């Protein structure tokens, strides 16, 4: 027994089973709460992304490949959209929420769900000061970031973080184009 495989490995097998059960228990206990945390973060941003929007009234819809929220106001009137968008930034994937008006013609808000840009430089994309620069931009415009903006379609880039700023523009451009097309296609 002492020199058999089982004699050597019984402890490893036993603790694997115990730890496996423990982890399964933790997952069962917490998975719903973790999923709710993620959803809540999105829902809590709806009033900021679409002014007047109420999270409780809004519903999640699938637009082509994209998850989106149809945003209603307190009276149940459809006043806008919140769409999820993601793409590569300077360091890693950037995940955004984009608020649009009811016709998806204008950007009404922007929120950064996840990013790992350079601390103190690129990660300033999550600050309202930068995000607010997108408000009121038309969705059919091709936005770009510039240190000294020369037209309405240029966004003032963050100093020291031109690539992060441009990445956000690219993600917004791609996502809004796709969404507008999906919306037009879906409603015909």
């Amino acid at each position, binding site marked *: 027994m002492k020199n058999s495989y089982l004699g*050597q490995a019984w402890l*490893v097998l036993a603790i694997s089973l115990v730890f496996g059960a423990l*982890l399964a228990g933790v997952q069962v206990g917490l998975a719903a709460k973790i999923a709710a*945390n993620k959803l809540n973060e999105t829902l809590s941003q709806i009033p900021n992304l679409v002014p007047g929007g109420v999270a409780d009234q809004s519903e999640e819809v699938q637009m082509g490949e994209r998850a989106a929220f149809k945003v209603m106001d307190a009276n149940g009137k459809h006043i806008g959209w919140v769409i999820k968008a993601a793409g590569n930034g300077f360091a890693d994937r950037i995940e955004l929420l984009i608020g649009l008006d009811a016709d998806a013609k204008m950007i009404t808000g922007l929120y950064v769900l996840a990013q790992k840009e350079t*601390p103190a430089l690129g990660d300033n994309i999550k600050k309202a000061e930068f995000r607010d620069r997108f408000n009121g931009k038309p969705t059919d415009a091709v936005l770009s970031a510039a240190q000294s903006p020369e037209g309405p379609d240029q966004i003032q880039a963050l100093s020291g973080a031109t690539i992060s700023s441009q990445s956000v523009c690219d993600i917004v451009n791609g996502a809004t184009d796709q969404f507008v097309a999906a919306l037009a296609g879906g409603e015909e």
Partner: protein
Amino acid sequence: MATLDGPTPLERFIHGILPENPVYRQLLGMCPTLAVTGNMKAAMTMSAATAFVLICANIIVSLIRNQLKPHLRILVFTLTIATFVTIADRLLAAFLYPMSKQLGPYIPLIIVNCIIICRCEVCASKQTLGPAIGDALGQSLGFALALASIASVRELLGAGTWFDLQVIPFSDQAKWGLMVLAPGAFLTLGTLLGVANWISGKFSGKRTAA
């Protein structure tokens, strides 16, 4: 077959804080020490998560130490540590979601933090529950103090805040942005390490080689 003549729980506890401080004396756990000390909140969350894993791992390893096969012990340590790291990660995601997002991959990386496997090997696999718990508490406190010292310097100089509270009224231009970036971590760690060596040299009456 416990070694009964090892250090007592109190000795283990005190050793962890300064004489065998994991960061300043053993130079272990450099990854979180450099990566998450940009601000106090992140540093203290990391310390708490590491403490949870270290205490749980030391308790389990001490309880099963007489059944350990020498050539399989590292495997058992790693399994134990990985389990509690995963639990810590899930708990953070459930109850401290924003902090979990900020720390990102560094919580799962506690698995490869050498402090924990080192304490399992040096203390918990050889001593009874008392010293193992004392050791885990002392080392956790030592790690937390080390992270706090580095994070305080970096957050104060880099952002003018401490635990997100404004301490120095810096304008945006006056902030020493370098301190919250990677080079600031190396500069602060190196300087404080030198100070720690100098102090311990003074106390013991002779300079220890760095």
